[in-house]
């Protein structure tokens, strides 16, 4: 009897732990997918990716508190705003650096610094709260779980699936990938390579903007919040294998899953240090990525 009771408690705990891990995996996957498009396809090492995430979170903070029009308009607006920020970055800066891609690291880091400081100037450096737009929880038999987190997991799963299908199953998506990976083909086919780069950059930015907006109610919104997502997204992409979209799935599971579960058992810093060591070890053993080609 006692055993059964214990088992019951454990099931509930395990279920909520697993759901927590899954939701952070899906959020990271959304952000990493944006990076996979920008870094994996175009090869731009976009260190402003974390700052884009932050911008997404600030958009929902603005609409739900400062502007008073609520969370949902911001949730829809965030990807668009961040897409515009990404497009501006591409047009004003990245476009001039395609001949020296490694320099994009420095230039995009400049963008990240500038965005972070601009946010501090506009809205001060203090952290903000965004209210939960879907308070309450849903009874999932084994456990009850936050409605908003469930919603968020659903949205992330749908968006990720749609993006996969777009890039791998539709004609336009396949052509886009082919063109980006082989620009000479592009000009031969008469396709506008500049446009495609711009589209990819804006699209990848929109994805991370959505991730930032989605996380905002679950955390504190502050000017440097994106930095950890920047590193985790890069790790997820590299682990899975840059250039393969699907690689972000195992990548995100390892990076976000391990640190989420680890944080429950040991201190967050120790967990993150261990994940970092694990990721570096995996990269060293398989530099081409878990799902990368030969």
């Amino acid at each position, binding site marked *: 009897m006692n055993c059964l009771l214990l088992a019951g408690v454990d099931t509930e705990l395990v279920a909520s732990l697993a759901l927590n891990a899954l939701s952070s995996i899906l959020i990271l996957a959304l952000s990493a997918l944006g990076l996979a498009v920008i870094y994996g396809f175009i090869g731009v*090492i976009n*260190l402003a990716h974390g700052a884009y995430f932050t911008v997404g979170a600030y958009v929902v903070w603005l609409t739900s508190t400062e502007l008073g029009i609520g969370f949902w308009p911001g949730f829809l607006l965030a990807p668009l705003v961040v897409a515009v920020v990404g497009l501006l970055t591409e047009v004003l*800066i990245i476009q*001039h*650096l395609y001949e*020296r891609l*490694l*320099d994009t*690291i*420095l*230039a995009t*880091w*400049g*963008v*990240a*610094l*500038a*965005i*972070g*400081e*601009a946010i*501090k*100037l506009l809205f001060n450096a203090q952290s903000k709260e965004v209210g939960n737009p879907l308070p309450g929880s849903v009874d999932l038999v084994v456990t009850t779980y936050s409605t908003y987190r469930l919603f968020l997991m659903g949205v992330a799963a749908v968006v990720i699936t749609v993006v996969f299908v777009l890039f791998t199953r539709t004609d336009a998506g396949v052509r886009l990938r082919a063109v980006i990976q082989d620009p000479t083909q592009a000009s031969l086919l008469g396709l506008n390579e500049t446009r495609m780069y711009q589209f990819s950059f804006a699209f990848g930015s929109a994805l991370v903007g959505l991730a930032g907006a989605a996380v905002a109610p679950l955390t504190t919104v502050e000017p440097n919040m994106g*930095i*950890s997502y920047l*590193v985790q997204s*890069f*790790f997820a992409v*590299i682990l899975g294998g840059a250039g393969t979209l699907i690689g972000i799935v195992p990548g995100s599971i390892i990076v976000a899953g391990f640190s989420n579960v680890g944080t429950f058992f040991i*201190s967050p*810093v120790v967990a*993150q*240090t261990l994940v*970092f060591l694990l*990721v*570096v070890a995996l*990269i*060293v*053993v398989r*530099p081409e990525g878990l799902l990368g080609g030969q």
Partner: protein
Amino acid sequence: MGGDESTTERAVGATGVASSLSVSVAGRELSGTTALAALGVGALLFAPAILANYLIQILTLSLIFALFAISVDLLWGYTGILTFGHAVFLGGGAYLMGTLLEAVGTGPAIVYAGLAAGTVLPGLLGLVVAGVLFSRGISEDYFTIITLALAIIAEQIAVSWSSVTNGANGLLVPPARVGIPGVVATELTGVPFYYLCVGVLLAGYLVARRIVDSPFGRALVAINENETKATALGYDTEKYKTLVFGVSSGMAGFAGTLYVLSERFISPPLLGFVQSTDVLIWVLVGGRGTLVGGILGTISLRFFENTISGALAFSWILVLGIVLILIVLLFPEGLVGVVEVARERLRDRRDDEATDHSSDL
């Protein structure tokens, strides 16, 4: 031979600019460079007579950071290894020295032990990190991202390991005494400490110059130019890259130990990514692959940061961010590069006028 050399130098870009001064230019221009160097050293020596005390303090710390910048320039400017985590080694050296002074004692023997440990241990850590990563032929961008993560993790560890580091509040370090262990010991502060830092920076510069001009340094430049070609030419590029990373990390650690002697305070951001980025900006603004550029960039940017930035209506970091973008886009070779390009153009024009035909081209 002359033709070969000039094409190589052009390919190296900023790196070639410095070496072209010493290699292919004789007579007047070389003496011009020497005069400039003498002027710079003279300015540093006479600064205490002119500048207010607080400016000397700022300058002292700038000299220490300039040594840090030289260590980064060896890596980035000469070898092409871009790291976003070099402050880990600076901060590592600083925390070693700081912990020794705080927990063990402040006498000369401890200080010397701290200087040695703060140089050797970060150097060894650098060797291990670079050895592991380079041995698998990890690409440049992966390396950069891993170093960025290293800096973030290191800063988090420093914040949370409060029994040693006193967490985010930072560690106050008692004043150190130098001299002969057991015989004489005195605190070294103010202008004397400033002169010590001038000497150390000069020595650091000369060591780096020596490294760069050696066969080892030429191998580094070859790696920067084209690693595949360098490997084909028989260079063990992995070994060279690992070695220079170790040397550079040791140098950064040494700068960190001086930082503690100067500031008597350490807090976690010293080993974080912001500090790691700052040094990249100093080197970039001064000019990559010139050694002198790193020194000039550090001193001038830190001077602006500490004097003008207070008067700005917006933050200094915003300025740095925009400067970073503009330099990458417009002047990838930095201040020294701009000056050198201008000089070369002038010289070319003179040469054209001297030879005088088809000068319109």
